[in-house]
Structure formats: C-alpha cells, structure tokens
C-alpha cells in the first residue's frame, strides 16, 4: 500500500473516531457511534499491516490474540459498579503502550524512518521524549488511581512535608532531562527520564483523595490522549495526532466539568489533601451537640413514600457501594404503580467517575428519560413531596450555599432541603467525604433511615407490598 493510500485510509479512520464521539450526544445514536469507533480501529490496524514497514506477522498476531482475549474476558465479566477502576486500569495500559512504542522508536529509529540509532532527528527526539514522559506518568498515575478505587490502598490522601516542592522539582528536572536528551541523544539520560516520569506519575496521584477520583480519571484520560499525540508527532502520523487530540481534549473537558461540579480549581484538586481530616467533623453550629435527629424505620418510609404525589431520588456513591440500584428500581416501580411520579436527580460529581450514577441506573433498567441532571431538576424540588437521598451527602449540604467558612462553600448542590420531606438513607451519622457535617440531618422535615442502602430499599419494598 502506497504512502498516499495509507494516509487516505488513516483519514477515514480519523473521521470514524470523530463520528464515534459525535454519536454520544444522545443515547439513541450512541450505539451506532460505537460501531463507527470499531470500524475506525479496524481500518487503522489493517492499513498499518498492509504498509511495507510490516513484514513479519507472527508476533503481531500473537499480541492481538492474547491481548484481545484478555480484554474481551475482562469486559464481559466486569461488574458495572467496578467501572471506575476498570477505566483507570485501561488508562494505565495506554500509558504503558506509549512508553513501549517510544522505547522501540528510540532504539530502532530506522524502522520508523526518523534517523539511525544515536543520530535521531532532533524534532523526533523532542516528540518521542514528551510522548514517553506523558505515557509513563499516565501509567503509574493510573495504577495508583486503580489501587485507590479498588480498595487495594486507602482512598485517603497521602501527604508528607515538602511534597509539592518535590513534585515541582521533579517536573522541572524532567524538562531539563528532555532538553539534554534532545541535545545529546544519550541513551542513559533517556532511560533516566523514563524512571523519573514513572516516579512523578506515582507522586502526583498519591495525595489525591478517593472522592476526587472523577477528576483524576478524567485527567488521566486526557493524558493518555496527549501521550498518543506525542507518538503521533514522532511518527508523523496524522491519525495518531487527530485521535490523541480528540481524547486529550475530551478528558480535559470532563476534568473541567467535574471541577466545576465541586466549585474547585483543577490546581486545588491536583495539589490534593482534600478530605484529609477524615473523621474529624467540622461542627455546623455552636449547638451541634444537643440537636436531635429524627430517625425512622422502613415502614415509616414506605408510608411516607406511598402517600406522596411526587418523589425525587438522589443517588450517590453509597448506592454504588451497596449495589442498591436494582432494589431501588423495584421500590420506584412499586411507587409508580401507586400513581407516584418518580424521577431521579444526579449531581455531576456523584460517584467515582463522570456519569457513574447514570450507568448504574441504566443497568437497573431505569429509563434514561426519568433521570435528570442538576440544572434540569433543581427548580422542581420546592414542588416535590419527598426527596429520597440514597448514599449521597455532601452534594445535598446547604452549607455549600450558606456557610462561607465551609470547605464546600460555593459548590452547586441539589436543593433537597426545599422538598416537603427529606428521607436520608445512610449507614451512620458520619460526615461525608469533605468532612463537613450536614445540618439537613437535624431539620424537622428530615427523616434518617439508618442502614445499608440495599437492605433499606428491600425492606421498604416489603413494607409497601
């Protein structure tokens, strides 16, 4: 296949990838979009295999068969609640693949047409080093994110003195090393660059707490794109450049949306340490100690829900942990049979990855036109009879609007307090991730339902029948 023809097919693949993202603008077109993505990938791989640079196929076929089998097995067997850690793990693979390709290009530049060993073109060295450094950061960063999400290590932020100076120093050192690699083309410096990039990826994610993971995953998503871009520049391959840029900007936009959902800057999230206090509760007011909480049983909740005209369900990470989505949908079905209008309200940062709650509700067969985003539903709370908060806390805390000293001040929240009655399904009175007490618990129109989210839903269903 001639170079021109190959470039033409790469162009078609790029367009397929753009259409794949375009399809996601609506759930109706999304599946077609995914097929465009698959088609684009097939075109890209076949085109590359037909170029004259690929002459030996056995190792390639072995790689695709082994990798494909592993990927297929994992994807078919993964639980939807484990999605965030799966995506983190997949990001790490892209990062590592980028590192491998950069290492191959550095040791055998003649295969890539960018010079001969020890005399690689300057521009290619810049692009290669950048691609490898970003790939390495993506790799170790994603491994840390995966470990936190999977619960292999504590989700608490890990801080130590001088951490930010160390990271900044390491970042500066990486830039210097890239300059040295470009100037001298020295192999030793190139490998040192790899090691330090791996270390930096690890150190960058370690101080970031579990509930900031939506931002971290989006950020790593973005990095994996930029790494592909760096390799694309090295190979002068427009398909890699276009795809890398698409993925890179997509991840960046998601990070921005997640940060806005928490009213925090990306710098604030990256510096980490948020939620470090853990158990220590910042008292909402002076008389926090002797305020009383009204707690109820599943029967009470069933009675209130049945007699309501409209219910809005607010799911959070607690629902995912308890795997309560199916029981919750059963409860909602019974309510609908009783003639109650049921809707769902989703905060942008609920869960551990963007859109996490939407996927879980979809898994439980909740129709997507009953699920609403924050700005679509917030003004309806005053006319809602019951707000049913299940496994969410900080995203409903009115302190975000009223208390300028609160760490979550300014964060957009779901106005559940305006509903006539608020039901809170929670395991205990513990504060949420931000370590802030939620004064809603003490309001007269609030009833706490203590217990596991799934069990509570099942008991409410029993009580209603």
């Amino acid at each position, binding site marked *: 296949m001639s170079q021109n023809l190959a470039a033409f097919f790469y162009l078609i693949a790029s367009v397929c990838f753009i259409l794949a993202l375009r399809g996601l603008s609506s759930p109706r077109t999304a599946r077609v979009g995914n097929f465009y993505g698959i088609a684009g990938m097939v075109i890209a791989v076949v085109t590359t295999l037909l170029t004259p640079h690929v002459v030996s196929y056995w190792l390639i076929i072995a790689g695709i068969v082994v990798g494909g089998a592993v990927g297929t097995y994992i994807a078919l067997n993964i639980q939807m609640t484990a999605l965030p850690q799966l995506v983190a793990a*997949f990001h790490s693979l892209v990062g590592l693949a980028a590192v491998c390709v950069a290492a191959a290009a550095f040791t055998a530049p003649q295969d890539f047409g960018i010079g001969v060993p020890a005399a690689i073109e300057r521009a290619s060295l810049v692009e290669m080093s950048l691609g490898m450094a970003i790939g390495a950061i993506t790799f170790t960063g994603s491994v840390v994110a995966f470990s936190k999400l999977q619960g292999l290590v504590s989700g608490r932020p890990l801080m130590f003195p001088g951490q930010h100076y160390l990271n900044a120093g390491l970042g500066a050192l990486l830039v210097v090393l890239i300059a040295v690699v470009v100037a001298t083309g020295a192999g030793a410096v190139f490998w040192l660059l790899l090691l330090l990039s791996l270390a930096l990826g690890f150190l960058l994610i370690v101080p970031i707490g579990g509930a900031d993971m939506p931002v971290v995953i989006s950020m790593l998503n973005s990095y994996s794109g930029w790494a592909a871009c760096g390799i694309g520049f090295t190979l002068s391959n427009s398909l890699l450049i276009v795809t890398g840029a698409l993925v890179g900007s997509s991840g960046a936009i998601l990070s921005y949306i997640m940060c806005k959902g928490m009213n925090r800057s990306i710098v604030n999230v990256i510096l980490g340490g948020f939620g470090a206090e853990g158990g220590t509760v910042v008292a909402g007011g002076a008389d926090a100690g002797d305020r009383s909480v009204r707690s109820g049983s599943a029967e009470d909740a069933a009675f209130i829900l049945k007699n309501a005209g409209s219910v809005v369900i607010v799911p959070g990470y607690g629902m995912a942990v308890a795997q309560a989505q199916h029981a919750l949908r059963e409860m909602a079905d019974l309510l609908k049979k009783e003639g109650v209008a049921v809707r769902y309200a989703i905060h942008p940062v609920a869960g551990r990855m963007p*859109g996490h709650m939407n996927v879980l509700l979809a898994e439980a067969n909740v129709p997507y036109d009953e699920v609403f985003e924050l700005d679509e539903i917030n003004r309806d709370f005053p006319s809602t009879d019951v707000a049913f908060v299940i496994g969410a806390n900080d995203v409903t805390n009115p302190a975000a609007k009223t208390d300028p000293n609160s760490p979550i001040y300014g964060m957009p929240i779901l106005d559940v307090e305006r509903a006539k009655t608020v039901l809170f399904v929670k395991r205990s009175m513990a504060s949420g991730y931000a370590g802030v007490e939620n004064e809603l618990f003490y309001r007269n129109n609030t009833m706490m339902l203590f217990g596991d989210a799934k069990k509570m839903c099942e008991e409410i269903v029993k009580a209603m029948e």
Partner: protein
Amino acid sequence: MADPAALAERARELAGDAGRLAHGLQALAYQLAAQSPAATGPAGGVPFVYELTVFVLAVFVGYHVVWRVTPALHSPLMSVTNAISSVIIVGALIAAGPAGISFAKVMGFVAVALASVNIFGGFIVTQRMLQMFQRKK
C-alpha cells in the same frame, strides 16, 4: 579608470555566472526532491507545521464534539475515548513489524498486546453500557 566598454563586458560575464549558478541550484533542488522520499520511512517528510495544523484543528473538533455529549453518557464517553486512544497500536505494529528479533520488536509486541486489551475491552464495555440505556416503555 575602466572604460564603459570593459564595464559592460564584465557585467555580461557576471550575468552569465549568475545564470549558471541558478541552473546548478535548480538541479540540486531536483536531486534533493528525488532523494528525500527514499530517505524517509513511515514518518515521511511532512513539515512539522503541517502536523501542528492537524493537531490544533483536531483539538477544536474534539472541543466542540465533546461539549455536545450528554452528561448521562459521560461514562461511555470515557471508555470509548479510552478504546480509541489505543490507536497507538499503529506505532506498536510498526515496531513489531520488521523481520528478525530485536529489543524494539519485543517492545512492539508488548505494546501490541497492551493496546489490544484496551481495544477489545474498551469497545465491549462501552457496548455493554450503551445497551443498558433505554427509553421509558
């Protein structure tokens, strides 16, 4: 001092020299153009600024396409972008492609395997997610 006739003669000589030089330069340029495709591999001889153009335009396309994605589908967006970023397999295939065996080829093999996990895993998980999104019956 030099008379006008000698000056004119000298000018004619110089003009001739310039013409020959220009001719030689053109020949060299042709030669260079003829040789460069042979000297380039997959990387081709594309000027950096063209690549940069493609990059910047693609960032804009990405920006506009992604803002139109409905928030409900942000998880599938993440897994599908993850799958398509494995297009890095193109570089891996070139690394694993040459005959014989070398460090670079092994690296290429590893990258092909890793990217394949991602391609199959990413697209299948996305498909599983998207199948679950349905309308009210």
